[in-house]
């Protein structure tokens, strides 16, 4: 009996040691690429892959961030379409465009031809559910000759070249598209780096693709680690485990060495969205009272630790053309005084919602609560994870929402955001705004094909939207990228679409 129990104790004590080494040895097998390989970039990214790097999912941005795949076009610094796989393009009539392709090869060795481009675009168009960038357009691609593609759209689409820069419309070789509808960019892109291995949702390794049309990349490869927790990402950079860590939370920014901290104005705008469809904010005077009460600049130095700009409008400094073309807002409702607010709300509680996904938002909501209470509102917060409240948001169950929104969606065109969020038939119209003048302004911007005029009309639509007080912009976010001092050539992109390209390397 005694020996028996002793043996059991021994077993109990030994198992963990043995099993521990064994399984973790296996679990760490993805680490074989690191260490001695000089010059490889080690990158910590924030959003783990959700669909095996499929370009039709969240993972698409990864393909452009790490220069794995390219589209026909790319966006330049000012947000205009620039050549990528297409060297040039022209619009032959309002619904038809022709694109001249450059000589390039896929990472699997096959050449980029008009046929492969058509194949890729057809697959994107047929994908279920459809990628967002194609949700409001139907396009048909045709082979003209070996290196010319004609793309026609059902309705006129002035921003087609911008659209084609979307990572979701990356051109992959025929091998990438599987019969069951899945798409794999592993070794099928055209970019300077090719994915060689993807280990679950934790790691990926990329090697330089020597046949890249734009020359050989300076770094021999990239080792990607996905670290969802912001503090852990910052820690990984500080302890030297990675060379580049994206999206450092503002709470951690001060802990980074100043030389490794790089801020980029982001196309994200945080705002307070008021529900104009039901509840207390159907009253324009109350909306105006809320607008006057709320001061977004108080958030900049506190909640955002200085890593934000006070809101100028819906579009911030990251949208470079916006400031010059901004239209003054006129015709706003007169704000109710605190006493009027109290009598109008009659003890009704303002349901203020926000999401936990971005750490700054709950803090911002608490600051706003105090500001709104000063104006006479009684506020109750509801803070949840985004997916836990999205259905309620779309159903209009809240009076106000503190929200962070990308103002240039994957089309790179501001109209898409305005149309989905503020048009009466917008699918993401959380403000439940139904205003004919706003609808008209957005529609007119959408139809404009001249770039400058389009931008002017977008800003006119912005003024129309702000006039309704359905949305109160608070701050324009800044993204903090952590980059070790021995790395050069990292792209600081306000659209969060590019990070590493041919010129990025370790010094």
């Amino acid at each position, binding site marked *: *009996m005694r020996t*028996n*129990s002793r043996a059991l104790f021994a077993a*109990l*004590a030994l*198992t963990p*040691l043995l*099993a*521990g080494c064994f*399984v*973790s040895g296996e*679990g*760490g097998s993805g*680490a074989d690429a690191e260490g001695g390989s000089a010059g490889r970039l080690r990158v910590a990214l924030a959003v783990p892959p*959700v*669909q*095996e790097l499929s370009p*039709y*999912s*969240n993972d698409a941005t990864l393909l452009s961030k790490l220069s794995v795949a390219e589209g026909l076009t790319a966006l330049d610094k000012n947000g205009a379409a620039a050549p990528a796989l297409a060297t040039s393009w022209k619009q032959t009539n309002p619904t038809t465009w022709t694109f001249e392709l450059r000589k390039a090869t896929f990472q699997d060795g096959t050449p980029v031809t008009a046929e492969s481009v058509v194949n890729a675009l057809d697959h994107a168009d047929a994908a*279920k*559910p*459809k990628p*967002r960038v194609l*949700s409001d357009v139907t396009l048909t691609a045709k082979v003209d000759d070996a290196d010319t593609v004609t793309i026609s759209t059902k309705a006129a689409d002035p921003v087609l070249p911008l659209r084609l820069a979307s990572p979701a419309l990356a051109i992959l070789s025929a091998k990438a598209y599987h019969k069951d509808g899945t798409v794999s960019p592993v070794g099928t892109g055209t970019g300077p780096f090719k994915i060689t291995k993807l280990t*679950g949702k*934790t790691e990926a390794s990329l090697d330089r693709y020597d046949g890249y049309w734009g020359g050989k990349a300076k770094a021999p490869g990239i080792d990607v*680690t996905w*670290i*969802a*927790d912001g*503090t*852990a990402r910052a*820690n*990984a950079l500080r*302890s030297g*485990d990675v060379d580049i860590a994206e999206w450092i939370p503002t*709470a*951690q920014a001060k802990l980074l060495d100043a030389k490794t901290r790089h801020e980029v104005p982001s196309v994200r705008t945080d705002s307070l969205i008021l529900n104009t469809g039901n509840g207390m904010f159907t009253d324009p005077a109350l909306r105006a009272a809320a607008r006057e009460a709320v001061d977004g600049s*108080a958030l900049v*130095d*506190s*909640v955002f630790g200085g890593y934000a700009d006070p809101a100028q409008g819906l579009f911030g400094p990251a949208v470079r053309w916006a400031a010059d073309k901004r239209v003054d807002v006129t015709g706003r409702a007169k704000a109710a005084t605190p006493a009027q607010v109290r009598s109008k709300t009659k003890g009704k509680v303002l349901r203020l919602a926000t999401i*936990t996904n971005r*750490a700054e938002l*709950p*803090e911002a*909501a*608490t*600051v706003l609560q105090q500001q709104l209470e000063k104006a006479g509102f009684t506020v109750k*917060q*509801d*803070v*949840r*994870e*985004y*997916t836990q409240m*999205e*259905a309620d948001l779309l159903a209009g169950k809240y009076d106000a929402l503190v929200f962070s929104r*990308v103002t240039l969606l994957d089309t790179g065109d501001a109209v898409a955001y305005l149309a989905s969020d503020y048009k009466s038939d917008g699918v993401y119209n959380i403000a439940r705004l139904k205003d004919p003048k706003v609808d008209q302004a957005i529609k007119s911007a959408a139809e404009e094909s001249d770039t400058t005029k389009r931008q002017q009309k977008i800003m006119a639509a912005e003024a129309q939207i702000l006039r309704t007080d359905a949305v109160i912009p608070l701050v324009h976010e800044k993204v903090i990228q952590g980059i070790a001092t021995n790395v050069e050539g990292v792209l600081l992109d306000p659209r969060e679409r590019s990070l590493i390209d041919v010129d990025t390397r370790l010094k």
Partner: protein
Amino acid sequence: MSVTSVGADARPAQWRAGLGRLAAGSRAGLGRLAAGVALLTAVALLPWLSGNDPALTVLRARSADQDPTPAQLAAVREQLGLDEGPFTHLVHWLGGLPRGDAGTSWVSGEPVLPQVTAAFAVSFTLMLGALVVTIAVAALVSARTLYLGSRRRLHRRRGATGAAVLAALPKFLLASLLATVCGVWLGWFPSSGWEGPSSMVLPALALGVPSGAMIGGLLDQALPAAFHEPWARTWHAYGFTSGHIARHALRRTLAGVLPQLLPTVVALVGGAVAVEKIFNIPGLGRLALDAAIAQDLPPLQTATLVLILLGITAGLLIQALRRALLGPALRDGALPALHAPALPRRRSSRWAAGACAIALLTLVIAGLLRDPLHVDTAARLLPPSAAHPLGTDSLGRDLLARLGHGALRTVGVALAVTAVCTLTGLLLGMATQVGAGLTEAVSTLPAVLAGLLTTAVTGPSVWGAALAVCLVGWTPYAAQAAALLEQERASGHMLASLSIGAGRGYRLRRHLLPAVLPAVLRNALLRLPTTVLVLASLGFLGLGEQPPTAEWGRLLSENQPYVELAPWAVLGPACALVLLSVLAVSGTASGRSGPRRTADR
């Protein structure tokens, strides 16, 4: 030795007992099966119960930018076959299991089984690491009592202050601290990742230290009773070595404490989400949480099944260990009851209780006089000063005020939840056969899962968090009560009591409850801080008090990002939790009177 002393001609009794055990075993097996089936069905119904369209959550998980147009949602619904309803899915999934096919993820379209097994291997390894730390810490905590007791120098009862302090440390805070200090500052171990044995050290410490303190605390409190038994006195008088006596006392007490490993350590396989996040470990907890949030049913179901099976396996293993430890004594009803001796309490522990009470009271009264909600963005993260004795948080709110105002609510809810859990645990612990199966099946389930089920049924509410924690929080007490009851039922005086015709109620009142209650209560009080933290961890589901209401668990979690920049912002609430824990543990120890217990025997 009294533990294994068996009559020579006890064969018929053994035989009868064997038959009885067989019947009990099959009943327990049925209990496990029923519990497993019920849980899996509940999980399978989740997307339909929650009122949250699974098509929308899956679409969101795939692509954050997607517009939720009816056409897109219909495409997802058709792709996943959501219109077929929950039971078709469940049957389909169950049907695939024998073939080793656990379905494909709704979000990624990849086969589920490889993902879940990989994550399980990682989490299991981490748990084993945590187990080693737990055993080491538990040994350290109970070493002094073991040393003194085996030499019969245990004259005063210990206050268990040290154990209470360690057990009250929030794991995520410990993890943050270790990652920063040992990972970033000193560079001793990797601050994140899962690259090899060295990445295991810090997370295992973060998970193991509080668990070890908890187990050690329980062991430490049970040991004096073993040393108080006649055999120990006799052996000492005969001159047996102290090591020998210590070993047998340990063996005697371990049997009652071992079942605590299931909800305390084994449960970490699925319940260490916060630590997995901080150290970026690709474990099962995170996988299950991500799947649950996206309502990605196949991985969620598979993870649940794995956790249930793990719980049952671990439960059986622990039971076997207990049998091996106690031997035939348990089976043949020859165990003396393990009752604590009436040792005088050490003055220091009484002092500790008093000091904690005064400190907490001062804290609460001073805090209540201040405004906990006033935001002053200019005064953010100020260190302690005359104006703000405990400093301010990231919004410039006074931390003392927030602690004071949060105290009553936090402690009240935690106590209520603990009371309900203890009661449920006691009841289920008494229903031996069914209870055992249910305990094993539930004890490894993370509270988040219960939280999701609760939100699905009740919607986000203040009491939702309490309900969710009650749903899973009773397992430690049920496991403990069942183990202690089994021993008590096997004791000689129960037989005597039975033979003189004592009724059920009498036995329950005079023997069973007194044998179980003190130990279970102590366990519950040691777990009080954990309860506070678990309650707060469900906040992201909309359960519990909404911000900006002050609440200790929230104070800790909302200030966690500032742990390095403004340590005082977490130090205050962490100290308050420690004070509460020490007060609860040492305070109740002085409240209970020993002599009545001895009179029973």
